[in-house]
């Protein structure tokens, strides 16, 4: 496995910066530039690069879609959220109408994880092959239903690509797309599945829409084993711990703190916070990232755990 590319990282619902937020940023940046000499383009680039990410960039607003570059010709994706649309556009730009195979691992079938499919251009290209894997028995029905009238004007059968649906029972190590893939059933309304991908001595875990019962020691051990020695754990950190176990208990999501604890128990190398709360601004997500890095530092007992926050467009080289 070579790298992981994040095309959609937001939880529940796509979001975008609005006009007032853009203006506020511009005002902040222009004010910050007053003391700087910005005569050349290089000066401007250096100034912009010196700004905090939540000012000069954005975590983005597409819902879950993550690409794993296995180093092979076939494409591997996790989930079909709205981030699938820019992925599809990039794939079309690179490969055109040459025949491609896409392997897609579904965490579950809630709307934010399937909504990108109707806008996935490669699905309309004859000769492409799209293989959808998951633990749910009704994946095809869910993908067809969202394109039925009156919800969408183009029915599923308009797709020219060949679709296949493969049921992956959890707890069994499957060989798919040149990788070993093991899934784990997770706590979420209607169930969700996490995936552990292993290839070339590298391990990536994709675990989103997963609530953790903190008092269940067996569950803690199960997840620690699932994350064991992973090079990268992509983790649902949608809520603060206080919210996740009080007002948002049973909403099916987790927190940055539980992510750190499980990764520390598992001796994982890199925790990537994922499925960001749609109500969170870039500044809030940046603060959560800073807090999480600090927490990792002050609670570290073994191997240092790298912590990052996913954003649309992030690429992590393995």
């Amino acid at each position, binding site marked *: 496995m070579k790298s992981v590319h994040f095309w959609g990282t937001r939880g529940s619902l796509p979001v975008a910066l609005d006009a007032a937020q853009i203006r506020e940023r511009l005002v902040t940046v222009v004010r910050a530039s007053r003391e700087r000499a910005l005569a050349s383009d290089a000066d401007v680039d250096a100034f912009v690069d010196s700004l905090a990410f939540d000012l000069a960039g954005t975590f983005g607003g597409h819902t879950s879609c993550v690409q794993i570059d296995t180093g092979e010709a076939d494409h591997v994706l996790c989930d079909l959220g709205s981030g699938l649309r820019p992925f599809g556009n990039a794939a079309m730009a690179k490969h055109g109408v040459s025949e491609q195979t896409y392997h897609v691992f579904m965490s579950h079938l809630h709307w934010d994880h399937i909504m990108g499919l109707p806008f996935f251009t490669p699905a309309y290209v004859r000769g492409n092959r799209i293989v959808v894997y998951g633990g749910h028995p009704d994946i095809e029905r869910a993908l067809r239903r969202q394109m039925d009238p009156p919800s969408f004007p183009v029915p599923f059968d308009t797709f020219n690509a060949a679709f296949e649906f493969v049921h992956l029972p959890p707890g069994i190590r499957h060989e798919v797309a040149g990788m070993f893939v093991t899934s784990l059933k997770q706590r979420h309304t209607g169930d969700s599945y996490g995936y552990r991908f292993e290839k070339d001595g590298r391990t990536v875990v994709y675990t989103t829409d997963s609530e953790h019962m903190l*008092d269940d*020691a067996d569950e803690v051990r199960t997840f620690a084993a699932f994350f064991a020695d992973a090079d990268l754990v992509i983790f649902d950190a949608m809520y603060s711990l*206080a919210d996740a176990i*009080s007002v948002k208990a049973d909403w099916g999501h987790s*927190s940055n*703190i539980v992510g750190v604890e499980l990764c520390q128990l598992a001796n994982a190398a890199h925790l990537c916070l994922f499925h960001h709360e749609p109500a969170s601004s870039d500044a809030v997500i940046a603060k959560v990232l800073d*807090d999480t890095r600090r927490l990792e530092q*002050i609670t570290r007992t073994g191997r240092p755990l790298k912590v990052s926050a996913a954003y649309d467009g992030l690429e992590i080289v393995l």
Partner: protein
Amino acid sequence: MEITHRALGDVVLVNPVGRIDYLVAAEFERNLMPLLGADGGSSRGLVIDLQRVDYLSSVGLRVLMLATRALKGRGARIAVAALQPVVGEIFAVSRFDRVVEIFPSVRAALAAISPTAAEAFERGPPAGVA
């Protein structure tokens, strides 16, 4: 883990020692739960002295959430006091600083919750009680 408690008038003061992580959280919960009812001595509230707790994991915070619900549900208060810097940061990162009242010392926590308890604390334990 080691955990003791004592009644101070209408407040119970709890003194845990060590790390409160997933290995000992069940024991922490077992010790705390009987103290949460009004008949457990905490009619006005409960103060947890964290002076000698050097780590509190999510599962320990969950126990505090259960205690908070039980106490606030009957109009009583819960506070933590004398947090070590690391534990204070854990409260901030988890946003538990918005769930539980935090005081710099046990004395300050008791004074805020119950003058009776604060006076009992200042008097110290009765002769012959360790």
